[in-house]
């Protein structure tokens, strides 16, 4: 064991003493997301549109996606955006619980291992500069780096950037969401040229943000773009 590792371990133990991990959903002490709650995450229906995730009788493209060209090859999510994933995402995003990124990445890893996608690099969906400063970090970037080191994929950060501060997507209709994030992203360098990129984000509702980010990656030279999010909002919540 080297010095840095020991120091890190001691630091973690001290922090565990002062701020003991307790489950974001049921408050039980022991882990930030306890095993019981992690097991109760609602998986998405197996039969769904491979592009947008809409539940379907069979796994074919849904009518909307058939009519619209999407820059995304496929979109995967760990589970639906209900308790306990909802509490977890809230804690990660709004309560400053950065320590939750790694346990969540571990869940993503398990999910990923069942059927990995043929990607070469990871890219977190970026936040606007002001939002990163306001929040202290980009939760998607935390997820991406923890997930990347677990599955052995490199993370390309700061290539894809958000060039304008868009308003929150919460409460907008599908059309408004697409308009809101249209042209919001761009690539600032050539690092994704020729790569098969996996976009990482916390929640996906209609996929508008992911689609806009994917288009920017394709414009930046990526050969194909895929997406993986922690949670997927049930379709009924957006009109």
């Amino acid at each position, binding site marked *: 064991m080297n010095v840095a590792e020991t120091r890190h371990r001691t630091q973690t133990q001290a*922090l565990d003493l*002062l*701020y003991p991990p307790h489950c*974001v959903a049921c408050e039980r002490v022991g882990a930030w997301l306890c095993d019981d709650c992690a097991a109760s995450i609602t998986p998405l229906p197996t039969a769904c549109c491979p592009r947008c995730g809409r539940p379907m009788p069979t796994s074919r493209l849904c009518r909307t996606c058939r009519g619209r060209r999407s820059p995304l090859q496929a979109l995967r999510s760990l589970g639906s955006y209900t308790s306990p994933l909802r509490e977890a995402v809230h804690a990660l995003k709004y309560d400053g619980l*950065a*320590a939750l990124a790694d346990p969540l990445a571990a869940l993503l890893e398990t999910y990923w291992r069942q059927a990995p996608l043929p990607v070469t690099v990871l890219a977190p969906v970026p936040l606007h500069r002001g939002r990163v*400063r*306001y*929040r*202290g970090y980009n939760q998607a970037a935390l997820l991406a780096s923890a997930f990347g080191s677990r599955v052995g994929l490199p993370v390309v950060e700061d290539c894809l950037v958000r060039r304008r501060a868009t308003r929150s997507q919460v409460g907008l209709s599908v059309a408004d969401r697409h308009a809101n994030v249209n042209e919001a992203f761009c690539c600032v360098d050539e690092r994704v040229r020729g790569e098969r990129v996996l976009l990482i984000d916390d929640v996906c509702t209609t996929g508008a943000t992911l689609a806009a980010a994917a288009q920017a990656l394709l414009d930046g030279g990526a050969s194909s773009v895929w997406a993986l999010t922690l949670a997927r909002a049930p379709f009924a919540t957006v009109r």
Partner: protein
Amino acid sequence: MTLICLTLAWTLGILLGRWLSPPLWTLAGLLAMASVTAVAVRHHLRALLATALVIAALLGAGRMALAQPRFDAGDLATYNDLDQPLTLRGTVSADPDRRSTYTQLQLSVDELLDEQGAHPVHGRAVLNVPAYPAYAYGDRLEVTGRLETPPVLDEFDYREYLAGRGVHSLLRRAQVSVLEGQGGVGLLRGLYNVRLALRAAVERTLPDPEAGLLTGILLGMGHTLPEELDEAFRAAGLSHIMVISGYNIGLVAVAVLLVTRRRLGIWPALALSLVGIALYTLFVGPSAPVLRAMLMACLLAGARFAGRKSHTLTTLAATSLIMTAINPHYLWSVSYQLSFAATLGLVVVEPVLTRRLQAHMVRDADPDQAAHGSALVRDVLLVTLAAQLATLPVMWTQFGEMSLVAPLANALVLPVQPAIMLLGAISTLLGALWTPLGQAAGWLVWPFLRFCVWVVEALGGLPWATIALPRLDGGLVWGLYAFVMAWMVWRRPRKVKLPASEREPSPEARRNRVVLAGLALAAVLVWGGVGALPDRRLHVWVLDVGQGDAILMRTPGGATVLVDGGPDPALLAARLGRILPFWQRRIDLLVATHADQDHLAGLLPLVTRYEVGLIVEPLGMQENALRVQWDAVVSASGAHVVRLSRGAEINLGDTLRLQLLNPSQRAGAMPVSDGNAGSLVLLASMGEWRMLLTGDIDAETEAALIASGQPLRATCLKVAHHGAGTGTSADFLEAVDPQVALISVGADNDYGHPAEQTLARLAAADVRVYRTDECGTLEVLTDGERCWVRGAY
């Protein structure tokens, strides 16, 4: 959970350390043994944890042993309880505790003076001094008095209380002189000056007792309310709103975050809010609840920095650990116990209550209603109920009583606290800049404060507001408490899953609510204003200020006259605030009949709180210590003073006429030694109606008045000297021939006022007698022909 257990072991260690007081070397030996064991068992988690608990307990005992006062040769406490008075020099080491009638100073003593010269000593003493002249933090004083060991009283261990503050001596009957000012820490001096200026601004902008309430809520300066209201606050279970606590600290932190986070980002904003909290802590004084809230806020911010979420119970344990490590005496401090118990209630008891309720509602109602309904009940009732249940053992062991009305009182009063803090802070800051501006802003906060006082008076005044609890052994109560708390933590009901309601109130609904609140506020203000408009009658109030005189008049035109102020400024201010309309901050004429404590003392702070048109004193008012302070206060305020004697006449708005009948001296006369005989005597008249105000004169002066041939006949007589037997002679009564006599006197006073023989003489003269000790404040109304008397104001 580990830290919670360690804190419990540490606390137990402190208790055992105090109980057994083991020698330090024993503890050191045990500690060494435990440490060796810990190293030996370091790979067995359970054994290691058990050893760690033992080590924590030993450290706690050691901390307590170190905190026991040990008085060495140079310690001030070794001079306690000597027969002769001592002369000491030292610096005022805390912001003086300015009470209504006196001020308590904490002096850090460094020199002892005797015939041989100055000897270095060290230690702190507290002493009570008159409210005037005012002393400040950092003043270097020379004091002479007797040093005493603080007493252990029946109800209250004053010695332990002071020991917790590092004070082991009381200085009685102290004579004080200032050597130099401007000592101490500059930052603290600045903060205390700002605080004093803000308090003065509050007192200029708002009437009492609302002003006193606001200084408590906002600035943490308690002890500014009259005693009876303090009592009502305790009975209503609302004393805690007068204490700066986590609520204020949280508000400061959130305010700083809100203002700075968007612009600077989270980390600088967090750092700034910590700076803000630290400054506020210094500003209001690091009392136990403030220190607790500050430490918890720091730990919360630390969690954010570490990318973690705090576990509230662990954070509370860590806070307790830090505080008792700084000063283990905290464990015996009531404010520390109350503060921690209340927080424990919010962390442990409230979730239990709420989840029980939610479980019921989820079963019986539709889920959305359950979410809303339970949030409402929780905010209004369960939070205060939890805090009250959790603080019950403290109330039990320390005060032996429990408030029955507290849940209702808290549910009514707590929702308006944020409005009071926000509007109060605005009006205070504006008032510090320019008084009229602050007064205008004060109209907005006044109704909320008035509402609080109304709730406190209504509920705290109920005869069954509190019940006495049987005396029980403290150990038993606390043991039971620990058991219940542990059980609640252990068998904590699981979180009830409620649909996450994302329905925010619509902007229209929110706007409607604001408009409604504004209309209600306006209605209250208008009605308050209409009720206080002049009614073409002369009102005279003989105020119930305890043992003393204070008489307020309002002419049909609305001019105000105050004759004397009673012994207690806070009580006088509260009585005035209740009678005068809330916007009235002016007294047109202030009359001091003589310089005795029970007439003049109440007037001193009034001169700075109200705008005073003219001050009238008797010519040759006696020169006592109070007179010297009065002169200093009056000349500092810049109010206009005239000294008058027999023959002078004052007309107010050509309806009320005041004629001066006494004293008889001419200008340039020597001051009299007997103040009572030199009292101003006033004959107030309007139309046919007359009232004679006699100050504290005795039969001799009465005879001189009769002999002087001045008109004495009056409808109403303010009986001289609170009804003392030395005055109100039968001859005088015959000369005045009153129909009504008013006696301003305190219940159960030490002087036996009013005297039996005076009452007998009044009865013989067939005069109706009204007394403030029986009826409270008395009100006389007249239209110039007829006259009414009302009691129990």
